[in-house]
């Protein structure tokens, strides 16, 4: 085998997101993996590499656990963990193996059991002060600093990220951020796999429980259970397959993973902008398309405040123009650049390691013309984006097959 320039998604599957009390992590991963294999028309015997992610139990070896249930063929497993970009990282790992020419087919799986997990980031356990003040750690802290020196909770961190955008460019308000959430919840009503399919009025969103101003509860991503998986193959392999497989295959025109480059202040408040902008720029160049070519975008709206900044980072609007761009209606499903027609993380849900493949499933669904009631008509090019705090960013650009 030789290195391949073309990589295709041959099969892809997302489970229902929500509360799966009767299914464990391996069950969910198996449902997604076997679903993706069946969708691709191949079996575990064809797969040359498995990349798998389950962030909450990152040391448990989800890839091998999955093999024990669906097929132990002796292929290499890469268990990956990369915060909320874990799913995208698993997919990118499989893509790299295919691209390098080491394998014809790769399988990527992301799975998480997160229903009822509550607040993430600050930790769910009570933090107690020590009996005597003793400096420890890289800051020489004598006591826990969460809540004493800013916040470590995700809603609070991402609230500041949205507020910082307003500080730099203006045009933001509590109401504007709430309107973004209103859009995504409205979109979710057309997605039967979403955790929540409930439309909220703007007033309901703004009057709901405040978590970290300006993010109220419906403006935060929903913790839930779920899995997603994808089978990828190279261009030569695709040519040998049936017309139906070639017609439904989705081209991976760009696959990019970045981390946050140093910038003043980036170790004080995580900077999710630099690495997204960098990933997007590389992806557009790899794919030979621009933001205006995108028929739909699934971006990482872990909080309503985050969605706004990524309009700008993904260059969907002019620099500094994200508020005007949203207010123009561009990102609603009937707008110029529909964003998060799945309902986004705020309503579809955010089973962390599954998210970076589930957003690609959504885009593929539209490119294949199989998205049912929420189909974006004639969709040919789409972009999927995830951010993992710490930070990692995955951007994939996908194109409809011409077969």
């Amino acid at each position, binding site marked *: 085998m030789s290195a391949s320039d073309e990589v295709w998604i041959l099969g892809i599957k997302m489970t229902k997101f929500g509360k799966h009390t009767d299914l464990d992590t391996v069950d969910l991963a198996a449902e997604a993996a076997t679903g993706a294999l069946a969708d691709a028309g191949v079996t575990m015997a064809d797969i040359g590499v498995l990349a798998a992610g389950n962030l909450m139990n990152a040391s448990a070896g989800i890839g091998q656990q999955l093999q024990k249930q669906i097929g132990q063929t002796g292929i290499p497993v890469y268990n990956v963990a990369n915060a909320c970009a874990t799913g995208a990282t698993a997919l990118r790992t499989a893509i790299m193996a295919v691209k390098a020419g080491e394998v014809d087919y790769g399988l990527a799986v992301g799975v998480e059991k997160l229903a009822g997990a509550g607040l993430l980031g600050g930790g769910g356990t009570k*933090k107690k002060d020590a009996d005597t*003040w003793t400096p420890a750690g890289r800051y020489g802290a*004598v006591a826990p*600093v969460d*809540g004493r020196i*800013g*916040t470590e909770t995700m*809603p609070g961190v991402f609230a500041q990220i949205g*507020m910082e955008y307003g500080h730099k460019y203006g045009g933001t308000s509590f109401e504007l951020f709430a309107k973004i959430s209103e859009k995504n919840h409205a979109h979710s009503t057309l997605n039967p796999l979403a955790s929540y399919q409930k439309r909220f009025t703007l007033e309901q969103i703004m009057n709901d429980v405040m978590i970290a101003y*300006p993010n109220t509860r419906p403006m935060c991503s929903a913790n839930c259970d779920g899995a997603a998986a994808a089978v990828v193959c190279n261009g030569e392999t695709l040519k040998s397959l049936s017309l139906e497989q070639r017609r439904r295959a989705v081209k991976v025109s760009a696959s990019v993973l970045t981390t946050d480059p140093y910038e003043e202040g980036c170790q004080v408040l995580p900077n999710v902008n630099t690495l997204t902008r960098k990933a997007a720029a590389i992806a557009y160049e790899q794919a030979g398309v621009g933001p205006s070519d995108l028929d739909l975008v699934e971006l990482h709206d872990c909080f309503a405040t985050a969605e706004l900044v990524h309009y700008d980072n993904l260059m969907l609007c002019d620099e500094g123009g994200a508020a005007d761009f949203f207010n123009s209606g561009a990102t609603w499903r009937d707008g110029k650049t529909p964003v998060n027609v799945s309902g986004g993380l705020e309503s579809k849900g955010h089973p962390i390691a599954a998210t970076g493949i589930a957003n690609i499933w959504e885009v593929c669904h539209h490119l294949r013309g199989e998205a049912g009631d929420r189909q974006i008509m004639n969709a040919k090019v789409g972009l999927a984006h995830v951010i993992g705090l710490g930070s990692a960013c995955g951007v994939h650009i996908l194109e409809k097959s011409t077969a």
Partner: protein
Amino acid sequence: MTGRIPLVDYLVLDDDQPHLVAQECTNCSARFFDRRNACASCFASEFTAVPIATEGTVRAFTIVAFAAPGVPTPFVAAVVDCAGTQVRANLINVEPDAEHVHDGMKVRLATQSIGLDSEGTEAIGFGFEPAP
């Protein structure tokens, strides 16, 4: 022995002029508040301690209503721009609501007691309060 101890080692408790200090890279001037192995910007490995301006403007904030168990809420978490150096801190001595806290507000460093340990040592934390 009783006395005072800063909450973190980058808070200097000079009686009349408490302030924060950063580790500044001698090569590229990037500033960091933690113990360093090397510079994240230019990879150099020599640093000097520099004082941080005690007045600044609020660059970003949030009012945290839900936090980990044991963390009193609500509180205002913020990033304060102190003459070009970004500092993470709570905003203190201000009502924690959107009427009293706003983007771009002028603030200054202030210290507050975190409490006494079993040996009677008082831990001192810091925040930023509205500047007159």
